[in-house]
């Protein structure tokens, strides 16, 4: 599979990236090289292999809902890590009015 310059521009736009002509050319090269590698992998027959999005998915032998229970929590507020104090929460925001985070006026979604 090959990507075109048009694809690069489309993906860059979705990712909110402004690329120079040079960067665009480099991205085209890099993306095609990555996809070339994927093409190599695609030569393997994976018909009977479950898709894996998670490495830990492979290493736990407990059955059913107990399997990943360790990665969930009870719905309790006390005793757990608290929310951030308000001033600290907004402290690093590029812009805030002390109460809210602020961004340039949003007109459309």
């Amino acid at each position, binding site marked *: 599979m090959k990507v075109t310059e048009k694809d690069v521009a489309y993906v860059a736009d979705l990712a909110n990236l402004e690329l120079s002509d040079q960067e665009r050319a480099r991205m085209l090269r890099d993306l095609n090289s990555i996809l070339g590698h994927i093409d190599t992998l695609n030569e393997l027959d994976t018909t009977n292999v479950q898709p894996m999005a*998670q490495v830990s998915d492979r290493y736990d032998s407990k059955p059913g809902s107990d399997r990943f229970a360790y990665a969930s929590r009870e719905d309790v507020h006390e005793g757990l890590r608290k929310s951030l104090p308000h001033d600290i929460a907004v402290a690093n925001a590029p812009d805030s009015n002390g109460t809210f985070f602020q961004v340039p006026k949003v007109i459309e979604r």
Partner: protein
Amino acid sequence: MATSPDLSVSARTKYEPVIGLEVHVQLLTVTKIFCSCSTRFGDPPNTNVCPVCLGLPGALPVLNRKAVEYAVLAAMALNCRINETSIFARKNYFYPDLPKGYQISQYDKPLAEYGWIDVPGPKRIGITRLHLEEDAGKSLHEGFPDADQKTAIDLNRSGVPLIEIVSEPEISSPDEAYEYLTRLKEIILYTGVSDCNMEEGSLRCDANVSVRPRGQKEFGTKTEVKNVNSFRFIREALEYEIERQIEVIESGGRITQETRLYNAQEGKTYGMRSKEQAHDYRYFPEPDLLPLVVDEKRRSEIRKLLPELPEARRKRLVADYGITEYDAAVLTASKALADQFEVAAKSATNPKRVANLVQSELAGRLKAKGLSIEQSPISMKGVAQSADLVESGAISSKMLKDLYDLSFERNKDFSVVYEEEGRPQQSRDTSALEKTIDEVIASNPKQVEQYRAGKKTVAVFFVGQVMKASKGQANPQLVNELVAKKLGG
């Protein structure tokens, strides 16, 4: 609603609408779906936030088990099949109230699928899927000194657990959409997993709508109607949008696939100026979360928490208490009310009389005053008490009516008014009653003859006449006895 006068009836009937609904429901957990921040509504802005729901680098989500339980409960109540394994996925888009740049949702492996809701018709509307996801924050565009230049963001809502319920495109009218939503809300309320409060945004609805010539198989181009905050407005928005689409097609135009906002004041929808490629979310599995496994053991644990659902309860109330379907619907308007009614009815000597009083005496008075049954001055307990008083013969039905009127006048419960009136008793004065009965017997010789000839059912006629003469004040039991005695003798 702003209907077009130009659109002829024949043009309207030439087309049929196809509607699909997406409903977001906020789950009533104490903490957020992936962190332990509070979900409380109305707290000061940006006080229930932490590195996870602010999307700060390096923070990792941990799934709230209660959110899963609630979502499964809702899915079961909506007749869905629960997938043993479901996968969280990232939905990528940029918006200031979405701090991570993606929303954690579910995509190709949702929590539940293949459900349905029955609406009057009867018609079964399919539910394609029900999945878990996190809410975004809230953008405020107005009400600030610099609102013309800036948008304010409150992230308290960011990470609050939601379920998204997607219907099949099987809804064929705005009325049907309204029914579907009403039933959906009622079922969710019964499960107790959400308060479904539309003002606070706990229930939100988007509608996909298209029209096609009647009989055509393929769907027309759809538009998505957003920003509608009541079921009534959704019905109106759909009515408007269907007419608009027919008009465009009839005048030779084409429908553009777009998102449209409903303006309730004008009763119109407006297209949003949006980019062509707005809907490419590039979903991929969320690497920070493990697969969600809900096995049979867990499913059966959760199934035990499922209450009797409104439809089943209505059917049972009709069967158990001999009330009409309409009254069963009134009494099941909320689970709390239905519970109150049943507790009261069961505590009374004659449960059916309680149901009948609600139907005959309470409902009409409430309607006349424009009150819902939850606002009734007479509680279910009061109805039960009054039913027992009539049952034991302490008060007549005429007296009950008067006491009910006083309750509504004074806006006080039945028990209070009954005390205030000095626990009135109906007359047991037999001499006055006997005199009335003698008069009734004397003026109806033909019926007396029938009775004495063996047609005992005629007694009912005499009891009726006596009750009428006493203006309902007489004790019916006593009248029964006396009439039988007099006629027999």
